[in-house]
């Protein structure tokens, strides 16, 4: 069929590289397919091309015609492990050490053995150039041709693989950075200019961002280049949600640092929107860390104050809050008698006690002792867990707790304590991204994913008053699903620094129009006609004198100052109507809307039907073990309700539904739980 062929010719595949599996999500013959291939950590591209070849054969699409959208952690990992390029940095003379001095503060107050995260550009690769622009944009000292030539020679002899350039106030006048880049072009190595990547004030944060970009450039462009050889239509998930072309990602890899997690959040949002839910909080709990984020009517929430691997990254990214706690977090009783969980993690080796190689009690051991994995254990039973070991580890912890409490505490009580403490940490993280940002959790649904998300989500929903939990099917493949359904997103911003008032309205309006004109042109070139474009206008505002802005949706018919006073009151508890209100920057978020994978609806059972459990097991929900039904997720049909309390198991995750909650499978295969 012609139309079928046409659809085939633009087959889209979402690809997400995880630690264990590389996931592929695509649509074939009207159905959404998930393919899992064992990851190849030393060369992630191998698993990807292996999987894509299979998909190509299966769907009868030539590899070169497949549109791949890829979520990758290659950049993040290189940064975490400090395995980026041999990078040089050019600064204004006298300021070569800004990157090392940072903000001059130590990361921990009371730790006498505190260390700093290593600097990514060592001293001998930092070069000062005699030049200066002032805070009004006036050029005080221009670099001379001789100075530029000398810089070139010094750089040449130090043999860097990439160069970052960050001069003071270059966001006001980028000409000196341009002169440097013209001069250095003959080195034929990647150059990153701060005036292009992050034209905003605060030199340390800007230098850090542009240095990271240079540091990752050679690696990422090699990696993507190799992939793109066979996949000319390759796109990459960016940290702000949405995708960008492989060539843009190779040039500005700093925008892809949260590429992996961005897919998961986009996927969660996609699933929620499909069932008509607008506001969600995502909760991705893994082995060593947990990521939470919030999406409202406008989609993902953004921040430009991220810290990644100990370094500030100030380009706009999804506002993900990470806590260093997960299934592998270690539980202990400290000298004062408090039950602590994390931040130390047992990791994969030796791993939790139940992996059989240690007697360290962890969150996973606590869940196991409470019977919360059912019979299957992890990965559908492929990974055997040693229950006795877990029991012993928790019994040891219980003994210590008993000493301080002055009463006998048993292993089950200790395990429940561990869960409570780790949940308290998660609750705090969820509050940071909701309540502390002025959102009421009662207006949101919680979407858990990651291996451990479903085990903790319902308790957390109860603690926060969240009325609904949506446990998506195949939570392991959510990132790839998000990638395949992601839009093309471009963010523009322009610093205007205007006091609010009648005159400023027209200036603001003009800036938005200019940005939008440019953006429409670009999106059209990428194949999005006007009707598939969306342009959102945001103002970054503050009281004159403040340093941090609130983001206000721009509405030309309403007073922006009033909107700001209200937002300030909601967020900080007061407003000062007598103060001058400034518009610091105007921001445009342009979206090219891709065609979504239409989620297939499962065949519905007649309503009110109760699902049939796979078996019964002894599970501790609150105090004592009770006999509870365990459902295998793939055997539960749409529309059926589950008997609670219960466990729902699937290959890569388990969901715990405690007493008093109600759970039902919806027609998209999501488990909808009212806590």
């Amino acid at each position, binding site marked *: 069929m012609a139309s079928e062929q046409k659809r085939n010719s633009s087959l889209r595949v979402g690809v997400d590289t995880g630690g264990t599996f590389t996931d592929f999500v695509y649509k074939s013959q009207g159905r959404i397919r998930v393919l899992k291939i064992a990851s190849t950590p030393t060369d992630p591209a191998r698993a990807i091309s292996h999987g894509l070849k299979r998909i190509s054969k299966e769907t009868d699409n030539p590899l070169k015609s497949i549109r791949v959208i890829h979520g990758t952690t290659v950049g993040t990992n290189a940064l975490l492990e400090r395995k980026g390029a041999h990078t040089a940095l050019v600064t204004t*003379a*006298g*300021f*070569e*050490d*800004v990157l*090392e*001095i940072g*903000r*001059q*503060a*130590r990361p*921990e*107050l*009371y730790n*006498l*053995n*505190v*260390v*700093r995260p290593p600097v990514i550009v060592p001293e001998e690769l930092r070069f000062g150039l005699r030049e200066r622009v002032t805070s009004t944009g006036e050029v005080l*000292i221009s670099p001379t041709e001789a100075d530029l030539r000398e810089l070139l020679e010094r750089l040449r002899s130090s043999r860097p693989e990439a160069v970052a350039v960050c001069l*003071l*106030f270059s966001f006001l006048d980028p000409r000196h950075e341009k002169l440097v880049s013209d001069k250095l072009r003959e080195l034929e190595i990647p150059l990153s200019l701060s005036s292009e990547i992050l034209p905003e*004030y*605060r*030199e*340390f*944060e800007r230098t850090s961002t542009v240095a990271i970009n240079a540091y990752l450039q050679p690696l990422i462009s090699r990696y993507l280049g190799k992939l793109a050889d066979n996949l000319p239509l390759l796109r990459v998930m960016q940290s702000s949600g949405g995708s960008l072309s492989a060539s843009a990602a190779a040039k500005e890899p700093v925008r892809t640092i949260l590429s992996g997690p961005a897919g998961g959040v986009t996927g969660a949002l996609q699933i929620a929107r499909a069932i008509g839910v607008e506001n969600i909080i995502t909760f991705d709990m893994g082995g060593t860390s947990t990521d939470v984020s919030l999406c409202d009517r406008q989609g993902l929430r953004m921040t430009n104050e991220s810290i990644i691997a100990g370094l500030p990254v100030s380009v706009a990214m999804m506002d993900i809050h990470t806590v260093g706690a997960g299934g592998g977090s270690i539980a202990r*009783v*400290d*000298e*004062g*008698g*408090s*039950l602590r*969980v994390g931040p130390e993690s047992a990791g994969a080796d030796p791993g939790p006690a139940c992996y059989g190689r240690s007697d360290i009690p962890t969150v996973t051991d606590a869940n196991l002792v409470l019977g919360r994995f059912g019979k299957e254990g992890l990965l559908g039973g492929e990974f055997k867990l040693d229950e006795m070991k877990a029991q012993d580890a928790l019994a040891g912890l219980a003994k210590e*707790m008993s000493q*301080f*409490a*002055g009463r006998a505490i048993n292993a089950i009580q200790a395990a*429940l*304590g561990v869960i*409570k*403490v780790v949940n*308290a*940490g998660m609750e*705090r993280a969820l*509050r940071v991204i909701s309540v*502390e940002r002025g959102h009421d959790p009662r207006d949101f649904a919680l979407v858990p994913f990651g291996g451990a998300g479903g085990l903790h989500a319902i308790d957390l929903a109860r603690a926060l008053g969240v009325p609904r939990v949506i446990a998506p099917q195949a939570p392991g493949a959510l990132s790839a699903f998000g990638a395949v359904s992601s839009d093309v997103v471009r963010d523009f911003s322009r610093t205007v620094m205007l006091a609010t008032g009648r005159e400023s309205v027209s200036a603001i309006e003009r800036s938005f129009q200019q940005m939008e004109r440019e953006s429409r042109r670009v999106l059209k070139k990428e194949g999005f006609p006007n009707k598939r474009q969306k342009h959102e206008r945001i103002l970054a505002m503050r*009281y004159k*004198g*403040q*340093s*941090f802005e609130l983001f206000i949706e721009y509405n030309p018919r309403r007073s922006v100052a009033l909107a700001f006073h209200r937002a300030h009151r*909601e967020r*900080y*508890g*007061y407003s*000062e109507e007598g*103060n001058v209100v400034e518009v610091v920057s105007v921001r445009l978020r342009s979206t090219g809307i891709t065609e979504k994978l239409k989620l297939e609806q499962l065949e519905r059972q007649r309503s009110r039907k109760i699902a049939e459990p796979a078996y019964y097991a002894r599970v501790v929900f609150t105090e004592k073990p009770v006999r509870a039904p365990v459902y295998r997720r793939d055997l539960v049909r749409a529309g059926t309700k589950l008997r609670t309390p219960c466990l729902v198991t699937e290959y890569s995750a388990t969901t715990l539904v405690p007493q008093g909650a109600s759970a039902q499978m919806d027609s998209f295969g999501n488990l909808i739980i009212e806590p």
Partner: protein
Amino acid sequence: MKQRSKQFDPTTLEIYRALFTSVTEEMGVALRRTAFSPNIKERRDYSCALFDSAGRVIAQGDHMPVHLGSMPMAVAAALRAVKLEPGDVVALNDPYAGGTHLPDVTLVMAVYGGGSSEFGGRVRKISSRQPLFFVANRAHHADIGGASPGSMGVSSDIYGEGVRIPPLKIVRHGEIAEDLMSLLLANLRGQYERRGDFAAQIGSLRTGEMRLLEIVEKRGARQTTEYAQHLIDYSSRIMQSAIRQIPDGTYEAEDYLDDDGIATDDIAIRLRMVIKGKHATVDFTDSSPQVAGPVNAVEAITVSAVSYVFRCLVGDVPASAGLLDPIKVIAPPGTIVNAIHPAPVAGGNVETSQRIVDVLFKALSQAIPNRIPAASQGTMNNLTIGGIDVRTGEEFSYYETIAGGMGARPSLDGLSAIHTHMTNSLNTPIEALEYAYPLRVRSYKIRKGSGGEGKHRGGDGVVREIESLVTARMSLLSERRKNAPYGLHGGENGAKGVDVIIRNSNPQPDPAESARHERIASKGSWLLSPGDVVHIETPGGGGHGSQRHR
């Protein structure tokens, strides 16, 4: 009763530990994001804490150590002086009534069940007649009046240092007390900025109140207040177990302040530390009498320094009142470590506090040599520059403390260009600084080779050069210009600090009018003409162990 109150659940204790700390952290975020002065919003020179109904501290954010140990005395003074009704906020800065030095203004608010505001539109279900808790924050205002812009100059009594605020209500029943506010603002430089900072401090207290009440509503007033007590006992137990790990004995040490900015004599801080079982006594009796210049420390600062040092010996515990339970501090009135009215104290908080820390660690290095670092830079290099900004016609007052070298540790080099011990304020970004003030930063670099040699090297200090673009008055309060930061166990001392004014520094040299380097004293005030550059080299940290073993 006492027996019963000792019963606690380890799980619940941990949950409250985290809950209370997160309230103080959020108060800090609110303050930083709404404040006007670079010193608060960029440098984070502030602290937030939570107190029980008796005014004992139960949680503090990881902010400024020098504030944290001394805030309890501010709250105690506020409670003695006034009755805090719902919606009231007390302000104070008087070093002789709960403060430390005048620029640090502390605000205190009582938290009643029922709350004081409708922040967030939430309805309160619980009400109480007595306060359940107190919340407080302390922020360093970039000017508090007095003779020198920035209020960190050399005066010979407290009256020259600025406005003293005894505990007074700056907010009454939710409304700002405009009479008091206008009296205050009339005596400070940069009124707009100061008022914005006060508003931010008040907003931060309300954030704390709201979060506490959410906890109380969810968990009940009884359990919440009970666990506040358990946390205090908990910190006390942790500290006792830390002291027990120090060998019993008497350890003595001394070190010196360079001078007081008026006379040039060394000023001694002498310590006798007695460790016995789980208790410690730190006795400063033989220290110098208080001095004429502004390096006197009030008792709150000495207690704060002691609290900091012992806090470094334990793991990650809440800095609650219990930490100091097993420690007795003896600081006789009238000495440099417990000055009495009307001694000037601007530098006691920032300089003397650092030296007290150096002396405490020196004593401890005899008891537990493999855990104690060599001396860090031992100063905060307080620089203030103020005058009229010709671009706007308005007053400005810039305050900054400059990082230096950290002392080497028994198994690690010291870090370079970093704030140590009693402070942890950030730098003002150069681009933020030049936007805000008529100043230009000429260089900001690591002072290579200034760390003391040793098996482990001390961290290097910093070189910071700032040019004034207008006629301005500049003050410096600094230390370790004469007595270097000590090395330990054969490690060499760190380099001393150096301060220079480069007159007429402009890049086009006229042979007749070439730049002139003027070495200046560690403490004092100077007039700057446009084009003059202040050049400061901060001290390096001491080395640890002999270099032969490197």
